[in-house]
């Protein structure tokens, strides 16, 4: 309904042997078990508590946490559940609200109870932003600011040197009461991002706000009343600030009210979680109370009957009970009035019905309510679009990207765009599909001190900018890796060292006697290899360092001499050089 796509988010990640469940959402469109994720995917037998190392919830929207009590209390999970402090505070309220609608209003039976919500929340461990939390010796998690709603976070999950970042829902542009999502260059192996709004090019916020203000203004100008049902936190803040500024600028006199229960609750949460809002809010809060607006006053039930124009913010957001429903019933019959629904409404609620176009509603006691007031829907949803997704990838620099999307939409274009721009692989699995990402883990290797000292002593000095090549032997034993010198390795393994010796024959045209050829060669080499030790031995051979050169006559051709060049493996380089040098022949002028 109302054109919004709400799915049930639930992702299972297996990283280095650890299993983490990301979000546990409820699908708002279904009335039966299809609304919950199918947890039998996780493990066919065995308890979830044994299989899962932890559960992480990104934010309090029901499509991300709505199935949590069902999961922990009815299916059974006793391990830790991680979420941010605001999420922990607000989640149970939403869950209880939803439970009330489903069970009390719709009379469903297979649903979690209030006690279950309480028991579930006892398993929750709250985390702070940028705080590294050790789940166990190897698994750690860290929350990053995600914008979107109060308390929403993106989570980094790390085991050793492998990591995954899950974004949940996020927004890369700040709005009036929340900042923009931010992450550091943590270079995870995988970034899991939502992509529901990736194909949209959004209307500017200014236009939406302008249209909202226009509607409110028009209604108030003709003497009508505007009802805006809200949830305690989030959009309500935005709209209050917006209206206050507008009223001030236009010097409007019509009263704006905020229902009292809302004010207290909202104030309370804002005080608790002021660090989660943006700079502007924090500044104003320091100067004054969040709800001490000049033009916005506390509401009293009696005011609803006052004549004349007014604007009222009241809970709950879907018009399913309480004050907002009461006010709605009073005002619905007058076509001068207007109700502006701020978000998605669950099926079965009055909000959902009027947004679907119903104008005759059945209330308690079989009363029929005729809805003549104008019904408007407002979408100020804050999700990342394609530009935002690219920005986040640029910030985090993941090695792979996985896009999560609601329906089986064709996203080839975005996939190619990401792959082309960042040269990473992009995956978009369907529900129920498993994707395997190959990572290149770093394996630590111990190096023997002796080897390290020896290798650093030869060749150029160590340079922070240039990698230095070292030679050693890698020993793998019992899951440990060590780098030692070849001698050490041979000793440990009880092996004898082999010696390799190369011999090469070089033919030289020289009709003179052998010992004269040897002399020629000796003088030639002595002249060229000034930095090396070139010696002419009494037995008629020449040595260059440890390389041996001997001359013999060719068996069939007296005019040709055969030089035997022989070297060990250690002198390979010099040996090859000498051979190619001699192959070029001797200069004529040497005596």
């Amino acid at each position: 309904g109302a054109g919004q796509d709400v799915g049930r988010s639930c992702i299972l990640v297996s990283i280095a042997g650890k299993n983490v469940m990301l979000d546990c959402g409820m699908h708002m469109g279904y009335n039966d078990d299809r609304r919950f994720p199918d947890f039998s995917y996780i493990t066919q037998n065995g308890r979830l508590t044994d299989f899962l190392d932890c559960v992480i919830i990104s934010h309090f929207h029901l499509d991300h946490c709505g199935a949590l009590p069902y999961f922990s209390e009815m299916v059974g999970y006793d391990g830790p559940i991680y979420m941010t402090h605001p999420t922990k505070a607000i989640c149970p309220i939403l869950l209880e609200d939803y439970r009330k609608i489903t069970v009390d209003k719709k009379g469903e039976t297979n649903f979690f109870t209030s006690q279950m919500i309480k028991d579930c929340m006892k398993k929750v461990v709250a985390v702070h932003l940028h705080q590294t939390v050790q789940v166990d010796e190897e698994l750690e998690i860290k929350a990053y600011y995600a914008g979107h709603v109060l308390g929403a976070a993106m989570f980094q999950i790390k085991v050793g040197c492998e990591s995954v970042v899950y974004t949940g829902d996020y927004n890369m542009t700040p709005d009036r009461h929340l900042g923009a999502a931010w992450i550091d260059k943590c270079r995870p192996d995988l970034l899991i991002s939502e992509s529901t709004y990736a194909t949209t090019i959004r209307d500017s916020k200014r236009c939406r706000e302008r249209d909202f203000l226009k509607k409110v203004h028009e209604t108030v100008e003709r003497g009508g009343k505007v009802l805006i049902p809200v949830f305690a936190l989030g959009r309500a803040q935005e709209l209050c600030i917006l209206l206050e500024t507008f009223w001030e600028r236009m010097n409007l006199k019509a009263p704006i009210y905020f229902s009292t229960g809302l004010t207290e609750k909202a104030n309370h949460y804002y005080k608790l979680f002021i660090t989660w809002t943006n700079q502007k809010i924090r500044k104003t809060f320091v100067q004054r109370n969040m709800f001490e607006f000049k033009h916005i006053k506390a509401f009293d039930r009696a005011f609803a009957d006052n004549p004349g124009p007014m604007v009222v913010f009241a809970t709950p957001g879907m018009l399913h009970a309480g004050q907002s429903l009461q006010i709605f019933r009073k005002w619905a019959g007058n076509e001068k009035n207007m109700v502006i629904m701020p978000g998605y409404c669950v099926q079965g609620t009055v909000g959902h019905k009027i947004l679907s176009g119903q104008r005759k509603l059945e209330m308690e006691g079989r009363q029929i309510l005729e809805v003549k007031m104008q019904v408007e829907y407002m979408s100020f949803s804050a999700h990342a679009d394609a530009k935002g997704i690219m920005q986040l990838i640029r910030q985090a620099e993941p090695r792979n990207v996985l896009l999560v999307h609601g329906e089986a939409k064709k996203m080839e274009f975005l996939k190619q765009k990401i792959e082309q721009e960042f040269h990473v692989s992009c995956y978009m699995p369907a529900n129920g599909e498993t994707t395997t990402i190959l990572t290149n883990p770093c394996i630590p290797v111990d190096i023997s001190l002796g080897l390290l000292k020896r290798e650093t002593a030869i060749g150029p000095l160590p340079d922070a900018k240039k990698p230095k090549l070292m030679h050693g032997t890698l020993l793998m034993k019992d899951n440990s890796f060590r780098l030692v010198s070849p001698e050490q390795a041979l000793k440990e393994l009880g092996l004898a060292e082999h010696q390799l010796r190369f011999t090469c024959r070089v033919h030289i045209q020289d009709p003179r006697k052998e010992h004269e050829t040897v002399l020629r060669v000796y003088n030639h080499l002595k002249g060229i290899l000034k930095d090396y030790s070139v010696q002419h031995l009494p037995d008629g051979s020449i040595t260059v360092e440890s390389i041996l050169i001997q001359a013999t006559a060719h068996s069939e051709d007296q005019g040709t001499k055969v030089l035997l060049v022989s070297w060990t493996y250690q002198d390979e380089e010099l040996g090859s050089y000498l051979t190619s040098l001699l192959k070029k022949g001797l200069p004529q002028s040497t005596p």
Partner: protein
Amino acid sequence: YRDLHTFELQVPTRLIEWARGNRICVAGYGQSDGNEILQLIPPPTLLTKETQGLCPERDFKVECGGFSERPVYSLKYVPDTSLLVTSGPPDSSLQVWQVSAEDSDIIKSVSTIATENDTGQSWAKIATISARAPWVLHGSRLDRVQITEVESRKNVYTAASRGSEELSGLAFLDCNTLLLCCATGRLCVADIRQPQNLMEAVSAPSAPCSEQWCMGTRHGAQGLEPSCQPVARLSSRGLLTLTDLRKTSEFLALAKARVPSPGSGAEFLCVSWAPALEGYLAISGFDGTVHVYDTQSWDSSGREAEPIFVHKGHAFGGAGGSGDSPLVTVHTWHLQKPRTLFSAASDGSLHVWDWVQPCGKC
């Protein structure tokens, strides 16, 4: 304004083309590789006759996209096919693409139509038609005009050479008649059944040189002879001429628009007729505004005309700060809603606006 919606594209576009099913297409023209061609579905609010204020579906959706290795300066859909043709620097060759939105959201590069490339040639202007077969009319200069069959890439017609001036636009008046507009302002008409003849239509009004011209033709209403629709020409100094192609010896009308001078060049000059309002046209490309004129009150005196409406949104939009104010790169009329226009600027903004008829007229 009756309505104004502002959007921001990731990169600016210099074209807005209508496609089947009320889609529009935009494309990047930046210097580097990786320019995107995007086919967008406008939000439902903009397609319905009534304006809904707070409807949830207010966003453009990218239906499909393609990647072009060169900047896209011009794009035309080939009617009755799933193909489109693009052109852009560094040469006058054309790129052919396939759009198959149902199967995949990628606009695939299919083939290239190569042309003779002399040095100093700029990019080709294009027009398409699918009368006898899917054809594309293209050329960067007056002596390089040809029609190529899109699928087979066979040359079907080459225009007789009448000079080597650079072209600023070309169009099919009907399946046999071509209209070519040179940057100097000269208009030529050709009949493809007589390739040796290139009929000179109208020369530009005499003026100090270094004025660049572009043209706008009206997609005629059904039943009307296309050649009886007046052709509008716009110069970089703001001069507007209306010509009836049947009486080319005189101007139907001549007027001057109030534009800043010196102009910012003729790169983005654009003039277009309203499809649903008789005698209305819009111009842009001088600054961050779009002007709408009612030409029915014009005469041939050449005096300054008063615009019916000026859209200034692009000049105010943007991040502010850096001195350069954005330049409107292109505008186009909505095909059904009579007073709705789309305009794009060099800062990536895309506006959709609907103006109110000033009192006294209806």
